[in-house]
Structures are given as structure tokens and as C-alpha cells.
């Protein structure tokens, strides 16, 4: 259980993290999203006791990060950004070092090291100095160090950055496996990952919390949510624009966009747009190559939330207003 309370960090006059507050309970995997420089890594450094907060605090399983730093560090597993390693040490030496620092005795330490090596498929490189490892392997050693002591709380800063697709998949499985009785925070720039592993996501921009929702909830904020997209077959002689103008007359449609051969109809409130479009298609005997009901687009939501929160992009701001009206 992590309770973050008005956590703030300043670098000189610049506020990198600004009164951030949120809770994570055991069993949750919290996705930590935000554009570059949003303050994700800075927040994680504070949660793991590396950086002292300028003000505010966080309570991790009952321990305050300001006054009980060592107790927090004992129970937390942390993968720092970029997975820094001692280059001259081998993978096994590095893991043993972490185990010994955490007070494991000989046999216990050996068992933990073997287990971590197995879980992250490091068998082949276990006696190699970490200097000579590829980027993905370095990241995996960093992960092995983080999970070595079976931590109750796991904080990972971009754990899948630099991994190949197979390893990404493995690491996502690992996170899900560990999720059951643990509190996990992962930062990432890969939005599919949020949908795949996170039970909740928060988005920060400019150091401030701008969204706190489930992945499904975030996707629902997309203007594409419940929109219907259809592509007309090119050789049918059917013009996408013509289709669009017919569809725009539907009472259920708020708006229609054409993108090449793809026509997207946006719903006007909570309506059954798919059936309506389907009926039109049958009525006009359109030859349609594909037709789908959109769940929403995460990248579009991310853009809208993170740009809309600043002074930037008027379109982003107005879209957010629309969303609020829809929600009301």
C-alpha cells in the first residue's frame, strides 16, 4: 500500500513534481504515464528514498519515506531509470552484493540469486561482466536486482525499454504474475503496455497529476470511443465522401471524418451507432471492406490530456471540454 501525499520536489526554482497525491493498494499495478520531463522518474526517486522530497511525503506499507527511509528501502524493489550497474562486476556478483546488503545469509542469498537469474533468463550471461552485456540484458539484470528479495512493493522505471518483443512479453507476464499480492508501480511510454498489465493508470504532466483512472476508463475518454469506422472497397466505385455525407445525416451521428478510404462516424451521446450505420449500409448496398466499433485510442487520450492540461493546443482543450460534457 502506497499513499502519496502532496509530494513535491524542486530543483532550484523549477518544480519537477508538484503536490502529487495518489494511493496504490496491494494487488494493483499502477501505470505511471506522462510526457518526457513530466516528473515520473523524480517521483520514483522520492518514493524509493533516493531523493528527499521538498515537501509532502509518501507512506509505504506504514513507513514514512522521510523518517523511515531504510525501512522503506528494505521492503521495496526498485529498477532505476536506465538500470545502472557496476560495470566490472559479473551478473552473479552484482546480485549477490544486493542480497548481502539486504541481509540474506549464504544459502538464502544463493537461492534468491538463482531464482532471479532463472526468472529473467539470465543463465547464459551469469558470469559475464555487466559492462559487456547488451542493453536489453542490462535491463533484465536491473529487473533481477529489483525482484531479488521478493519485495512487497515494486517500483520500476521503464522496465521494458530496450527489450525485444519476446522479452517485453516475458516481463509483462512477470509483472502480472507478481501482481497478486504486491503493490507495483511501473512507468512507461508504451501505451499498449498500460492496457496489457496495469489495473490503473495515472498521467502526470508538468509535475502535476492530470488523470487517475483505469485503462478502460481512460480509453473511454477518447473521442473515438464508440465511434464506427468503415473502409469502402476501392474498386466498388463508391466514394468515401459520398458515404460520409449520407452517414452525417443520421440522427445518431455527431460528426463524420474521412481519412482516405476510411470513414469514421462519431456518436452523438449514448446511442447505438453501429446498428444505425449497419442499416444504412444495407439500405444503400455499400460494398464495405471492413467495419468496426472503436473502443477508443489511448495515444489520442494521452495527447489530449497531457497537451490540454498546459496552455498549449486549443484543440486539445476544447476536446477535453467535450468529454466533460459527455460525462455529465
Amino acid at each position: 500500500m502506497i499513499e502519496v501525499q502532496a509530494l513535491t520536489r524542486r530543483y532550484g526554482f523549477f518544480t519537477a513534481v508538484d503536490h502529487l497525491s495518489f494511493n496504490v493498494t496491494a494487488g494493483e499495478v499502477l501505470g505511471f504515464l506522462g510526457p518526457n520531463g513530466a516528473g515520473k522518474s523524480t517521483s520514483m526517486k522520492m518514493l524509493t528514498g533516493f531523493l528527499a522530497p521538498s515537501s509532502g511525503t509518501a507512506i509505504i506499507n506504514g513507513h514514512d519515506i522521510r523518517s523511515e527511509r531504510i525501512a522503506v528501502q528494505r521492503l521495496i524493489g526498485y529498477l532505476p531509470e536506465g538500470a545502472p550497474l557496476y560495470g566490472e562486476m559479473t551478473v552473479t556478483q552484482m546480485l549477490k552484493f544486493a542480497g548481502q546488503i539486504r541481509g540474506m545469509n549464504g544459502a538464502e542469498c544463493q537461492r534468491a540469486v538463482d531464482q532471479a537469474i532463472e526468472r529473467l533468463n539470465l543463465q547464459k550471461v551469469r558470469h559475464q561482466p555487466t559492462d559487456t552485456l547488451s542493453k536489453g540484458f542490462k535491463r533484465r539484470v536491473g529487473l533481477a536486482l529489483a525482484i531479488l528479495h521478493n519485495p512487497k512493493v515494486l517500483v520500476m522505471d521503464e522496465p521494458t525499454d530496450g527489450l525485444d518483443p519476446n522479452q517485453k512479453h516475458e516481463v509483462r507476464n512477470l509483472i502480472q504474475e507478481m501482481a497478486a499480492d504486491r503493490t507495483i508501480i511501473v512507468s512507461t511510454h508504451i501505451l499498449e503496455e498500460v492496457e496489457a498489465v496495469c489495473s490503473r493508470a495515472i498521467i502526470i504532466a508538468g509535475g502535476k497529476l492530470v488523470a487517475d483512472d483505469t485503462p478502460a476508463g481512460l480509453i473511454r475518454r477518447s473521442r473515438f470511443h464508440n465511434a464506427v469506422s468503415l473502409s469502402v472497397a476501392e474498386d466498388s466505385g463508391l466514394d468515401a465522401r459520398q458515404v460520409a455525407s449520407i452517414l452525417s445525416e443520421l440522427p445518431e451521428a455527431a460528426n463524420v471524418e474521412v481519412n482516405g478510404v476510411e470513414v469514421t462516424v462519431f456518436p452523438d451521446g449514448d446511442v447505438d451507432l453501429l446498428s444505425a450505420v449497419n442499416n444504412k449500409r444495407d439500405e444503400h448496398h455499400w460494398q464495405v471492406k471492413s467495419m468496426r466499433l472503436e473502443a477508443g485510442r489511448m495515444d489520442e487520450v494521452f495527447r489530449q490530456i497531457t497537451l490540454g492540461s498546459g496552455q498549449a493546443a486549443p484543440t486539445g482543450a476544447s476536446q477535453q471540454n467535450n468529454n466533460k460534457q459527455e460525462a455529465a
Partner: protein
Amino acid sequence: MNAIKTILRRELLGYFSTPVAWVFLVIFLVLTNAITFVVGNYYERGIADMQPFFVYHPWLYLFLVPAIAMRLWAEERKSGTIEFLLTLPVTASQAVIGKFLAAWLFLGLALALTVPLWITVNVLGDPDNGSIFTAYVGSWLMAGAYLSIGSCLSSLTRNQVVAFILAVVTCLVLLLIGLTPVAGFFRILLPQAFVDGIVSLSMLTHFDAISKGVLDLRDLLYYFLMIGFWLCANLIVVELRKAD
């Protein structure tokens, strides 16, 4: 305690898994012997003691100790491993002490490797072995004082070269203020008591007696205070500037 020991072991392992340790040991041995025999006129003096060996240690350490100290924290910051280290359940003071002790032990090892010289002296004549032992201890303490300065200054930067230069300059100042001509020059400008105070801060002043085998409690205290002071400064710098 356990954390300090683990960090100490890791550091020593680090020294010996790179050529750094071997290169340093060879250079140290070559230089100490060269200075003793060539500069110190070991044979020509015809006296069976180790004065020529010890007397140049303050100047030898001026470059050799900062070379060992420069990587202590600068490297850790440059590679980002400081974040790994200090998010393990260790306090910053355990890390500072563990790293310092490892480097100090390593310097002790280098010094211990000169023992054949001591044996030679015993073969050639009949030296005062108690004095020699005292001088060894004094030399090691002085190395510790240099090291604590180097360690502190290494935590100020992520650049090892900068750390090295800062340490050499600081140690050089602490040596020079003990030289009689330098002190004499300041005596013209400044009050007597003030100059005496400054001179008593010099490494050189405190090494003089101990290198001759005379153990003065004040000299011991000086070295321990020096080490304590610089390690405290080291700790404060690490705590305040670790994220920069």
C-alpha cells in the same frame, strides 16, 4: 556493520577486477623504491634506518592517493550506480565509510608490500624496529587523511579528472603551509598565533615526528580529526548532491 562490510568487499573486488589495482601497486612500489635508493641516498648514508623511505611519503601520496580517491564517488555518479547503491537499505554514512575503508585498506596493502625493504634494513644493520613500525602507522594514517580529502572532493563532481585535480591542489596546500619558508613568508604579514595555527594544520608538520618514530598523541589526534572532518563533509555532500 554488515552493510559496511559488504560495501567494503565489493569495492575491493572492484579494484582487483580491473587493472587499476595492479597498475597502482606496481607504480607505488617502483616509486617508493626509486625514491629511497636514488633520491634518498639509501646506501651512501650508511645508516641502517628507513628515514629516506618515509621522508618523501607526503610528496608521493600527493599524487598517488588522489589517483585512488578520484573514482570513489565521481564514478558512482557518472554511471548512475549511486542511485542503485543508495536505494538499497544502506545509509549514506555506511556507504561513505565502506568506500573509504576499502580504499584505505588497499593503500595499507600497498604499504605492506614494501616490507621487504624493512627486512633488508634488518639484514644490513640493526635498526630500531619500533620506530620503523611507528613510522609505518604514521604513514598509513597520513594516507588516510589524504584519502578522506580525495573522497570528499570526488563526491562533488561526476568527472574523475576534476576530482583528481581538486584533491591534489587541496593536499598540496595542506603540505605547503607546513614548509618553513612558506610559513616564514606569512609571518611577515599575519599575526604570530594565526600563522602557528595554520602551520599546525599541515600534514607535513604532523608527519615529521611520527616518521622518525616518535609517537605524539597530538599527531594521532590530528590525523583522526582530519579523517573525521573530511568524511563528515563527504557525507553531507553525498546527501545533498547525490541527484545532481
